[in-house]
């Protein structure tokens, strides 16, 4: 099982040092999710370490997206969806009725599987969040936020001459980076990414992965992926789901070299999926 390149192995070793020092940004405690009468997640205990990338893997339909969406309560928008158990952000229960969902989602941003830029200009796409939350006091400040977000999403150089063209006119990979820029622009603490590269070609994927690695400096990231290589390359912690259960969770390096569970090993080596 030699999925990891030498480079990422080195990196993983380095990350291991960080992992020890890191605290948990979010904590999931006995999280169960129901769609109507159907239970999609069963008592999942999963902690999200701060300023690290946590990868969620597992076969299709195992509940990765469901767990991800419960982290910023996007499940609320689904009719008949119910969450039990406890999820905390910095020790605060996010399902507490006193919590303002809108504020929560500003702190825990989300990037979706399919790039979904608004049918507005590139500039307006990025400025959308800051406008809504009143993050900029002047036009000038807004310009700065937009520029720095685009820069951090390593998109600025490619689009700086056409900031006022439609965001939907970009290529798929650019659109996805635009969506990441849009998420960054509201300065979230956690960024959730649901298969952010599934619609992208290898080059665009590489760019997004590079970007995720950089974003780790400032943000806590949770990423759902179907690519074992991707999980190995970008994440420090990996959680393996199967049929709504959390099968195994641990440091990425450990998961990919010496998994404890047979199911994890089978999945990683491609024996089922």
């Amino acid at each position, binding site marked *: 099982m030699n999925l990891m390149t030498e480079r990422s192995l080195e990196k993983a070793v380095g990350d291991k040092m960080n992992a020890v020092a890191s605290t948990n940004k979010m904590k999931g405690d006995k999280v169960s999710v129901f769609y109507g009468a159907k239970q999609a997640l069963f008592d999942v205990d999963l902690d999200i370490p701060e300023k690290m990338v946590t990868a969620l893997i597992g076969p299709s339909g195992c509940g990765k997206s469901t767990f991800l969406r419960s982290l*910023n309560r*996007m499940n609320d*928008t689904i*009719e008949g969806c119910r969450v039990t158990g406890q999820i905390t952000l910095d020790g605060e229960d996010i399902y507490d009725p006193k919590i303002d969902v*809108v*504020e*929560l*989602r*500003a*702190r825990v*941003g*989300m990037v*979706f599987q*399919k790039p*979904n*830029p*608004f*049918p*507005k200009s590139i500039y307006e796409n990025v400025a*959308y*969040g800051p406008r*809504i*939350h009143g993050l900029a006091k002047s036009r000038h400040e807004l310009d700065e936020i937009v520029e720095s977000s685009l820069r951090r999403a390593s998109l600025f150089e490619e689009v700086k001459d056409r900031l006022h063209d439609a965001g*939907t006119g970009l290529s798929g990979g650019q659109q996805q980076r635009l*969506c990441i820029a*849009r*998420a960054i622009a*509201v300065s979230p603490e956690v960024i959730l990414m649901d298969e952010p590269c599934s619609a992208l070609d290898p080059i665009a994927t590489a760019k997004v992965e590079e970007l995720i690695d950089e974003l780790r400096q400032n943000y806590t990231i949770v990423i759902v992926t179907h690519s074992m290589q991707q999980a190995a390359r970008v994440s420090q912690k990996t959680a393996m789901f199967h049929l709504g259960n959390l099968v195994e969770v641990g440091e990425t390096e450990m998961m990919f070299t010496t998994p404890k569970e047979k199911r994890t090993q089978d999945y990683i080596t491609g024996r089922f999926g």
Partner: protein
Amino acid sequence: MSVLLVLLIVFGIGIVGFFIGRQRASARETGEVKVHSRAYYHGWWVFLVSVLPAVLFIVLWSAGSSIYLERSAQASLPAQTAESAVASRGLALSMVRGIATGLDRLDAQELQNLPQSYADLRSLLGSKGVALASEGQDYMVPIAERWHSQAATARTIGAGLAIALAVAGVIFGLSGIHPRARARNNVERIVLWGLLAASTIAILTTVGIIFSMLFQTINFFSVVSPWNFFFGTVWDPRFADAGSGGSQGQFGLIPLLAGTLYIAFVAMLFAVPVGLFAAIYMAEYATPKVRATVKPLLEILAGIPTIVYGFFALVTVGPFLRDLSAAISGGGGFIMAQSVLTAGLVMGIMLIPFVSSLSDDIITAVPRAMRDGSLGLGATRSETIKRVILPAALPGIVGALLLTASRAIGETMIVVLAAGVAARLTVNPFEAMTTITVKIVNQLTGDLEFNSPQTLVAFALGITLFFLTLAMNIFALYIVRKYREQYE
């Protein structure tokens, strides 16, 4: 044999052909040769080959024979003289036809000894429930009798030929069955032609409508100049005496057009916000359960006949507004019972379901990913609607509103009852105005003679209205289509 019976027999033969064909084709599927078409396509092909030509023949034959019979009967009518009891040859002919069809009711016995005088025949047929005109003449009886017997012969021959044709079709179809026969392609082609014919009928009808109006409109414009019609500001056809040369009626379109647009505008002013908000509620806030009840309820509004809205305006809304204004001003009301406001308000109520239903469809068509994207950034629902969904849906909504507006412009019954008939130019919504549709109704009711500009003007108005709404619909479709491309 009646035509209906022949048709039934032909169809029966076709159905038998279908089963035989299908059975034969499946018997041929031995597995040695790969069959081209499934067995039931062969069955259908046999059916179509036998039924279609036969039906076509029946149609042509009956049309041809009835034209022939009418010609020959007309030829044998005596010359029209001043003393004739019947006003015209055409009338005489139609009386003969009446007798001939009446004779169908008699049995063979009665036909044998048919009374030769018209009066006797009339009382005989009267006893069978066939009413004939009283001024018929004796000479008509033999002509009608011959007509009747010839028609019966023609029918029998036609029926025989049609049935023979159907049988021949079955034989032809069956003889063509072999594993590689392309029955599927043949059937598909006939289906295609059938569909094409159906859509052509719709288009031809539209063209026919335009032309029928066009000719009358041209007649109208030969009497009244287009300039006076399109740019005239006075509508006063009533007291004009078209025949007396000098003083012509005044047919100014402007007051009617102004009234039409004004009332439509008031209606939209009322319907757009209410309908749009209802649509937003249904699409974004309502739970599926609420939506499942509210939407059909709103659509019931669309099913109410507009004349009922007219009553509502006339007996409820109009008097209410008048009394309300009287109460406010303390003296006489400043809102007339029939007014732009009344008509516009009630028409607006009528339009609400159109606006809400169309907009609801458009809003729900905005991809869920847009909503999620916005909500995921911490936007509230209403921010999401205002800043993402409505802008994305805007072109579609504008298209929907244009479609609605063209309905408002063409609406008739409400304005007939609620807007009044006074063709006035005013900006006061509390007074009565009138619309193009109201005037069309006015000009075409009562004693009609289709050669005076007073009636012909209705066609000019109609065609103006037609082009007005046509232009709006085309524009709306253009916008809606453009909006669709956005997500494809």
